[in-house]
């Protein structure tokens, strides 16, 4: 335990968080951390570049983690999101955005949905307060259905009770509701339940074999278990193999944290783990030769300890009930089976569940549960959070006790309450305003040879600090992690190779993973070796899954981005390149696995090779997805009553509305915009559009008729000779260019140049209603010339094809009848609406296929085309109905 002979310079300022007068001397970039002062005068040499492992990089084998086990049979619901709680209306852009909780909309909906809840309990609640003579009457009154007729008496009561009930009740209820919502919102912003992580890796006897322990089931209340926990075999060259099907231990509450510690130091790969429990077993127990582990589990109100032996079943040792709620549990790296348990009440207990009857030597047995610290107040400044954390230190009798404001070293043998602050949320660590401790961890529990056993990790929402318990209050390393969610788990791994820096993994709740390389051998200060690295998260795996229809795709996406609640990693030393095996547990209960290998020859000039999906990986994902989609969706907690107005509106929407006036009015109403003349179809200065001239459509029907009769060739001949005349035979490609020039001229006229690309334009600007020219002003008639001149049928086919490809624009009819207003409406349509329409088209496609089959099939158009056409007909209510039969349906 040598202390670094020279510490990096740092300013020491006492004071509160975000103290304004401190220049930040602890530089937070990774390279500046590498620049610790040279011990001796540096030699001025040409190649005096810092001896820094520049290319230290763990390369993922696949672009993202892969599911290790099939998804559980229970449906998973992502729960409350910010969208559900925040105020949506009047979003103004501000530099300092504010979260405003909203209840109005939700509450009114709730009252609509739950009339029973809204009205009945009020009466029941108040009943107790009415021990008057007329209590019986009141009872009846209150139990009256609110929608029944009102008697005279009741009316009078309404008038009387209105002011009283309305104000005081609203205040009371409002307070309660606000409290609840605020609590939910706080929880959404910061969920500390899973701090420490709920996934653990119990190494087996052979390196690369082990068991995963994690909660499963919809409520995360089953600890995976068989005769053993989920056994996994890892080989450096291939994917992990899952052995056997684990059973489970059913618990009575959700598992929040799982901690393990190997009891035996027999396995060669895990020699760094300190032996535990050996003294508690009789001498020469055969079990001693097999690695066994202790397994501590924290639930909301219970903590439990198991012993996982190799041959037998996991044996429960003891369960502890924590009345106020447990916030953290940790297992001692020094003494077998000693634990610390923290409670929301601010108490920290040392727990020795295994102290059974006195051992042979007659050592005095310490009480099983001993409170070593209690303070309902926080350490440095006042913070409302009851979160507490405790861990061990290099001295087995000294614990760290942490809360949101700092971390304290507490001597369990000293007088209660005494101790020394190890980390202070304040100017000492140049903390910024609003910074809070979210995770603390003792890092000294593995191999003592590469890093001092006195280091502690402290994570806040901004930074990561490394503190040496011999130099309290002055962090030796500070790094801005930049995670966009709460840091949940941190794990320091043994060095992959002797002399290599040690990887430190940090996982954020949103699934982000970061890997830092920490070096600091012997008497040198710990520092970052090379720039930190981000590892692929579960949402990076989306590309490995086959493309799905939107609803399932969304479900998959949601599942992949479920919060991370556990992380376990193990380094497999292999001859050529060390392999890092990484397991992640999500709140949906999925275990994902990722393999990384240390870049063999780090050459900064070569671009980092990008991993790609192997066919095996994608097939594994497909299988997983198939199982996932078989899992039924969460049944809704309640079904909204059918008298919801929105639903009624919805059913109206699908119905075809006749006539332009109600259609326009209805859209205006639905969109809540100003009613305009064109909505009503009132064009006072213009005459009603005359019936379209017998134009191309007639040709089409003629052609169709001919086709039905099998004389299309003759019809063609006739037509060639008739209308076109010799020498005027148009060529197809020429027509196309003509068409596209039309689009460009059209788009130019409509000022659509920014919004439309050529293939998109036809559906916006060239509806089939086009051949109704009289409405267009004379100037436009010039550009529309080609249309009026009888479009050949093939061209229509091209158009139809376009339309089949693209959904129809909603406001086409408006454009057809009054093109001057078209510009603004088209430009105003956002892409969101576009996609929406895409969806409707697709959905309608599915729904109407049966209907489509019954239609007389036409050779000229596909079902898609018909449908879009049909839709167009629906949307353009002003179109003469007789057009439809002409189109063949």
């Amino acid at each position, binding site marked *: 335990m040598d202390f670094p002979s020279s510490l990096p310079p*740092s300013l020491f300022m006492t004071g509160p968080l975000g103290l304004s007068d401190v220049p930040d001397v602890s530089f937070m*970039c990774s390279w500046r951390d590498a620049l610790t002062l040279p011990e001796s005068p540096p030699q*001025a040499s040409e190649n005096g570049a810092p001896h820094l492992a520049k290319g230290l990089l763990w390369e993922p084998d696949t672009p993202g983690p892969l599911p290790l086990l099939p998804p559980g049979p229970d449906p998973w619901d992502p729960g409350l999101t910010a969208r559900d709680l925040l105020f949506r209306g009047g979003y103004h852009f501000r530099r300092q955005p504010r*979260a405003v909780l909203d209840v109005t909309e939700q509450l009114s909906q709730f009252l609509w949905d739950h009339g029973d809840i809204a009205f009945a309990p009020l009466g029941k609640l108040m009943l107790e307060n009415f021990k008057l003579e007329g209590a019986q009457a009141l009872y009846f009154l209150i139990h009256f259905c609110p929608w029944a007729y009102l008697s005279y008496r009741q009316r009078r009561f309404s008038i009387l009770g209105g002011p009283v009930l309305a104000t005081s009740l609203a205040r009371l209820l409002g307070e309660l509701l606000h409290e609840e919502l605020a609590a939910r919102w*706080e929880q959404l912003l*910061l969920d500390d339940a899973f701090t420490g992580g709920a996934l653990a890796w119990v190494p087996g006897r052979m390196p690369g074999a082990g068991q995963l322990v994690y909660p499963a089931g919809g409520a995360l209340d089953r600890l995976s278990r068989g005769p053993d926990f989920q056994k996994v075999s890892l080989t450096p060259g291939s994917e992990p193999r899952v052995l056997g099907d684990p059973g489970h231990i059913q618990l009575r509450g959700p598992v929040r944290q799982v901690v393990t510690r190997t009891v035996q130091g027999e396995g060669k790969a895990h020699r760094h783990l300190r032996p535990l429990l050996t003294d508690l077993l009789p001498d020469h127990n055969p079990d001693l030769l097999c690695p066994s582990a202790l397994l501590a589990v924290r639930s909301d109100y219970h903590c439990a300890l198991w012993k996982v032996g190799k041959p037998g079943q996991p044996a429960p040792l003891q369960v502890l009930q924590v009345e106020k709620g447990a916030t953290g549990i940790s297992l001692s790296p020094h*003494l077998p089976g000693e634990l610390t348990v923290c409670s929301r009440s601010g108490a920290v207990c040392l727990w020795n569940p295994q102290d059974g009857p006195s051992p042979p030597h007659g050592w005095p047995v310490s009480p099983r549960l001993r409170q070593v610290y209690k303070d309902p107040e926080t350490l440095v400044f006042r913070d409302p*959070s009851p979160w507490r954390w405790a861990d061990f230190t290099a001295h087995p009798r000294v614990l760290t006790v942490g809360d949101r404001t700092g971390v304290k070293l507490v001597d369990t043998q000293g007088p209660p309450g005494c101790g020394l602050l190890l980390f202070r949320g304040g100017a000492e660590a140049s903390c910024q305003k609003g910074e809070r401790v979210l995770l603390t961890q003792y890092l000294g529990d593995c191999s003592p040879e590469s890093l001092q056993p006195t280091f502690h990790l402290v994570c806040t929402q901004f930074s990561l600090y490394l503190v040496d318990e011999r*130099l309290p209050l002055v962090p030796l390393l500070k790094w801005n992690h930049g995670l966009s969610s709460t840091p949940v788990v941190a794990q320091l791994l043994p060095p992959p190779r002797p002399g290599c820096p040690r990887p430190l993994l940090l996982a954020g709740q*949103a699934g982000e993973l970061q890997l830092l390389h920490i070096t600091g051998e012997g008497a040198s200060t710990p520092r970052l070796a090379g720039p930190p690295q981000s590892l692929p998260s579960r949402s990076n795996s989306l590309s490995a899954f086959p493309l799905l229809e939107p609803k399932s795709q969304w479900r998959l996406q949601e599942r992949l981005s479920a919060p991370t609640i556990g992380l376990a990693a193990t380094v497999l030393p292999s001859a050529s390149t060390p392999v890092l095996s990484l397991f992640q547990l999500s709140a949906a209960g999925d275990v994902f696995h990722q393999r990384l290998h240390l870049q063999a020859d780090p050459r900064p000039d070569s671009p980092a090779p990008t991993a790609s999906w192997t066919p095996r990986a994608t097939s594994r994902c497909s299988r997983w997805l198939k199982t996932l989609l078989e899992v039924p969706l969460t049944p809704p907690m309640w079904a909204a009553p059918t008298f919801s107005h929105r639903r009624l509106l919805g059913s109206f929407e699908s119905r075809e509305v006749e006539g332009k006036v109600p259609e326009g009015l209805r859209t205006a109403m639905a969109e809540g915009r100003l009613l305009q003349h064109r909505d009503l179809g009132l064009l006072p200065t213009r005459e009603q559009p005359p019936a379209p001239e017998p134009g191309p459509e007639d040709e089409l029907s003629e052609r169709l008729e001919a086709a039905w009769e099998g004389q299309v060739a003759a019809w063609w001949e006739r037509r060639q000779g008739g209308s076109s005349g010799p020498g005027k035979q148009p060529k197809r490609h020429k027509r196309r260019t003509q068409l596209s020039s039309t689009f460009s001229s059209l788009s130019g006229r409509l000022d659509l140049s920014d919004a439309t690309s050529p293939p998109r334009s036809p559906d916006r600007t060239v509806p089939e209603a086009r051949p109704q020219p009289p409405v267009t002003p004379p100037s436009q008639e010039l550009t529309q010339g080609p249309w009026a001149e009888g479009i050949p049928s093939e061209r229509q086919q091209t158009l139809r094809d376009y339309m089949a490809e693209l959904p129809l624009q909603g406001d086409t009819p408006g454009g057809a009848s009054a093109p001057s207003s078209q510009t603004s409406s088209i430009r105003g349509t956002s892409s969101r609406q576009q996609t929406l329409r895409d969806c409707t088209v697709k959905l309608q496609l599915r729904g109407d296929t049966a209907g489509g089959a019954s239609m007389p099939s036409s050779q000229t158009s596909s079902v898609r085309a018909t449908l879009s056409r049909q839709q167009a007909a629906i949307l353009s209510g002003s179109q003469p109905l007789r057009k439809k039969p002409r189109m063949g349906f």
Partner: protein
Amino acid sequence: MSDFSEELVRPTTEDEQGETCVLSGTGMCFPWLQKHIETVGKTLVATGGKREKDFAQTTSACLSFIQEALLKHQWQQAAEYMHSYLQILEDSDSNKRQGAPEIIWRLGSEILYYHPKSSLETFNTFADRMKNIGVMNYLKISLQHALYLLHHGLLEDANRNLSQAETWRYGEKSSSKEVLINLIQAYKGLLQYYTWSKKKMELSQLDEDDYAYNTASQNMLNHSWKTSINLCALIQIPGVWDPFVKSYVEMLEFYGDQDGAREVLTNYAYDEKFPSNPNAHIYLYGFLKRERAPREKLISVLKLSIEKNMILHRKKEEHHKLGLEVLFGVLDFAGCTKNITAWKYLAKYLRQTLMGSHLAWVQEEWNSRKNWWPRFHFSYFWAKSDWKDDKTLACEKALVAGILLGKGCRYFRYVKKQDHQVLQKKIKQMKKSVKKYSIVNPGL
């Protein structure tokens, strides 16, 4: 107060987070709150400041691209994004515009530090430009630039840089600026110390009667005078200044200013405003030892170390109690469990103390440890592993275990049973000692 100091004092992370940091009702700040709000806001049409909003969103997206590329070690890509990010200097929001240079410097220097194609020249150009764009960051950037040069072995360039920064003045005086200037001066002093110690080396190779000796020593004296001026200002400010204190004291000692050196070291070790730095005590101890200070004084300086025990040992009886205390204390720590010196001394001390029939001293120490030392030090597993790794250690530990726990102790029994040619005599001796002194059954 000038905006300079306001700029300096702003916590840097806040700048990097942009405006994503919002205080909640509990006073806590959530960098991810913005994301939540955006998910709601996105579905709505923004009602005001559309252009500003768009630009803010684009810049924050660009920033996250850069950060992502950095975390993936894609330096080339990060550089490309950085190129676009410079647009933020044109932001209409003055707050952002002011914070921008610092972000650009932090990210840009990181990219240039790791980029395979970046060179010293590129870095220098970038640093010089950034110093003048963010005038507010002049001192900070200068200091970091100097450190960069120092690590590339360019001492002279670093020195020039620091000198420039030292004389730089802008706006009103503020304490934060003063600290930075002190730091810059101290680093400059350190550079001067490097040359000084080089000269000292040269001097030691010269003959005292040589003519050159005089000029050289005169030269050195000049240097040290300048250096001490530079160093002494900073080390008055509370902080961890190990390299500065060390070099300052070395120079003071060289010129015979023992009192000055002692004062500096005592202040560094005992001033309450300073953090409790073990090195401060080690330096003071080293100084006192060089000065041949009385042992009592040395003992008082050392808190917990084996060296302390070695001094104590020489003082015989009267310090045995303190020695035991120190040894037990040292062996409490997880990092010292295999320290053979400590175990050797403990075994020796226990024997001597018990020989001198001071059983109470041993019991005093042992009482607080008897319920956990057996599991911590003397488990069956440790017996096996210690014996395998270091037999001498195992023997010393077995002796201590035997004395403290009696001969029934598992550790003792395990070592006792081992048959070893070389250590046979030692094990025999150990058995005898345990029989004689064990505190568990003193009657036997």
